[in-house]
């Protein structure tokens, strides 16, 4: 077992492709992304078969990487006594307006959920308990934790389980052999080594995609990355699979949430955890307008969109009304924030705000693609294998199954590990070490990845930041971002696709001055490719099913006749042409789909 450090930054950079050092490692299980799901893939795979060679390719450093790097204040799902996994699926279904959702996946995740969270407690995660010793529920399904150390706790267990962690290696592409995945490549942002991991099974657990859309706080100073989602999760996992023909599901169901305004921080902490009602500038309780949809318990997208509708109607700003909170509750709420987004406490201090005198302002977030929250991600079967044999997905990257959150991503990591182990039993051996086809593939990918660096300092080109900013504004204004109150239409989406194609043509002008910028250049290409898929999804769903998450001004009504189904996309790996199609929804858990 080893946690290989990123190490010192390279003193000299390659000048030509021949200067790039290539390191090849063979393994049984390759995990791309050592986050919440990835760590659980590692622990479960090692538990089931201690002889496996498990490698984690990690873009950051595993102790503080990804969306959990700052910590966590709650686990949003843990099945309470008297409730069943089926009940959790009913709740999840109602949260997404009755679906469609993959009830097969949701149910299998739910059956694995509590045990995965029990693992975290066994490992030392503080889960808050009431005086009677029972777990403290802050809502119907969610429990409170003091999760400042959540990420290091998970990472330590993955390393103890024997996983070999390659830190500071950013995944760039999949290795393919006759239509199946046989590993992946990565860029070491410290040494400049091009890593090749040949693997009998590959699990992509890179997290979701933030930063496709412009954040309303993004400016020329220091607010460029003040978003709710981790800005270092840019969708590279989706891009890697999509480029090789893996089918994506439901990307149009974007995750947009009500967040604290200006500092895009969590709101459930206040509204669910401390029952602070959402009010508008006239002191009216906003959710009472949605009483027919459940009021404070209305589906998640309704709650997300409600404050924005108030703004549009001239009744903004909106707030979480904290003015009646007792001092001990305020102290507890601040402690919750310190566990998840500590800088929100700093934000309030830098506004000089006493929340018992002034309520906390809220607003809509920028849209994200996150298969652990909503359901945009790879189409997977029950073993969590994507439509590309040998390629598995877990956590935010796996689609069709919303409301997973921390516990569900952990559970899915276990399921994907078992799926990968079963697959390896009957899989063909890896291509020979001297396979010419694989060597050509590796050389081509190396050339693609390093091109922005090798163009040289004198090259008159485009910086990764310029292209990212261009994409983010394009997505914001034309593909339903915050500035447009999440609305879009056919013509705007066509405009977005036209300019995404132009950006793809302009990849040839990207330039990077060092390895960090080279990583950024590759991330930006990934963002553009994922955005292309998102726009195709938004175009294909010609109805409005989840206003806010997915709002079509030209099709404002829900259309159950044509769209009570999944929207899918696939990119032809040869031609690059993206096609959209649908898959049917199947109700497995009985009951009224709108009710939990």
């Amino acid at each position, binding site marked *: 077992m080893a946690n290989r450090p990123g190490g010192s*930054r390279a003193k000299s950079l390659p000048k030509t492709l021949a200067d790039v050092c290539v390191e090849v490692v063979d393994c049984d299980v390759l995990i791309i992304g050592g986050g919440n799901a990835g760590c659980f893939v590692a622990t479960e795979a090692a538990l089931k078969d201690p002889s496996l060679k498990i490698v984690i390719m990690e873009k950051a450093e595993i102790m503080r990487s990804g969306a959990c790097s700052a910590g966590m204040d709650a686990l949003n799902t843990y099945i309470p006594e008297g409730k069943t996994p089926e009940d959790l699926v009913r709740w999840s279904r109602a949260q997404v307006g009755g679906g469609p959702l993959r009830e097969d996946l949701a149910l299998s995740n739910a059956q694995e959920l509590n045990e995965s969270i029990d693992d975290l*407690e*066994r490992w030392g995660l503080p889960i808050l308990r009431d005086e009677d010793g029972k777990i403290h529920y802050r809502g119907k399904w969610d429990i409170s934790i003091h999760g400042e150390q959540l990420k290091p706790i998970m990472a330590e267990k993955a390393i103890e389980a024997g996983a070999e962690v390659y830190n500071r290696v950013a995944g760039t592409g999949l290795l393919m052999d006759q239509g199946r995945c046989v590993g992946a490549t990565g860029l070491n942002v410290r040494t400049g080594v091009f890593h090749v991991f040949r693997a009998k099974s590959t699990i992509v657990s890179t997290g979701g995609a933030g930063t496709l859309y412009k954040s309303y706080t993004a400016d020329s100073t*220091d607010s460029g990355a003040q978003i709710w989602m*981790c800005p*270092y999760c840019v969708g590279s996992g989706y891009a890697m699979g999509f480029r090789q023909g893996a089918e994506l599901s439901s990307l149009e169901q974007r995750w947009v949430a009500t967040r604290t305004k200006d500092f895009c921080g969590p709101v459930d902490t206040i509204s669910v955890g401390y029952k602070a009602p959402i009010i508008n500038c006239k002191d009216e309780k906003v959710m009472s307008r949605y009483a027919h949809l459940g009021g404070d318990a209305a589906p998640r997208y309704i709650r997300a969109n409600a404050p924005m509708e108030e703004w549009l109607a001239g009744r903004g700003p909106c707030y979480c009304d904290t003015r009646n909170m007792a001092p001990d509750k305020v102290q507890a709420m601040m402690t919750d924030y310190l566990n998840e987004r*500590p800088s929100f406490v700093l934000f309030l*201090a830098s506004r000089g705000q006493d929340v018992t005198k002034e309520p906390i302002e809220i607003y809509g977030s920028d849209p994200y693609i996150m298969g652990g929250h909503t359901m945009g991600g790879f189409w997977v079967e029950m073993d969590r294998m994507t439509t590309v044999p040998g390629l598995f997905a877990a956590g935010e990257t796996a689609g069709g199954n919303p409301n997973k959150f921390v516990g569900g991503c952990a559970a899915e990591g276990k399921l994907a590990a078992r799926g990968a182990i079963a697959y390896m039993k009957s899989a063909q051996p890896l291509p020979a070490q001297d396979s010419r086809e694989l060597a050509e593939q590796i050389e081509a990918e190396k050339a693609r990845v390093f091109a922005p660096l090798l163009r040289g300092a004198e090259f008159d080109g485009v910086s990764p930041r310029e292209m990212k900013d261009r994409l983010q504004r394009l997505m914001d204004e034309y593909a339903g971002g915050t500035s447009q109150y999440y609305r879009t239409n056919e013509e705007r989406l066509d405009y977005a696709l036209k300019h995404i194609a132009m950006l793809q043509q302009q990849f040839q002008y990207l330039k990077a001055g060092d390895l960090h910028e080279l990583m950024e250049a590759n991330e930006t290409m990934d963002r553009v490719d994922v955005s292309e898929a998102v726009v195709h999804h938004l175009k294909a769903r010609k109805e409005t099913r989840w206003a806010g998450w997915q709002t079509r001004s030209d099709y404002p009504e829900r259309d159950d006749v044509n769209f009570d189904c999944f929207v899918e996309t696939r990119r032809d790996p040869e031609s690059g042409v993206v096609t959209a199609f649908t898959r049917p929804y199947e109700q497995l858990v009985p009951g009224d789909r709108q009710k939990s």
Partner: protein
Amino acid sequence: MPPRVLPNKCNGCPDRAETRCEEACPGDLMALDPATGKAFCRSTRDCWDCMSCTKVCPCAAIETRMPYQLGYHKASLRPIMSKNRIIWKCVDIHGQETTYEYANRLAPKTDLP
């Protein structure tokens, strides 16, 4: 300016291949300036304010600041890490200090089934 390195406190983590803040940052934003021997943030606008660098620094040489666009000058939030506990000291723009303290890890549980 999210992470602000205090030059009189930063010792550049001598004898390490990478400084502790450089190792921790999920965005690969911290680096060592060879000219000064001190750490710095290469791109403050890309910082998420996760405070991983601030928590990990053994010299308390990093302050996390709110970008001015979002919050006024100047408040501070300081994490003090000890074994299985964390203490936070927060001072707002009016000089009011609040302290928070709690266990961030428990002993591993062996009694759970």
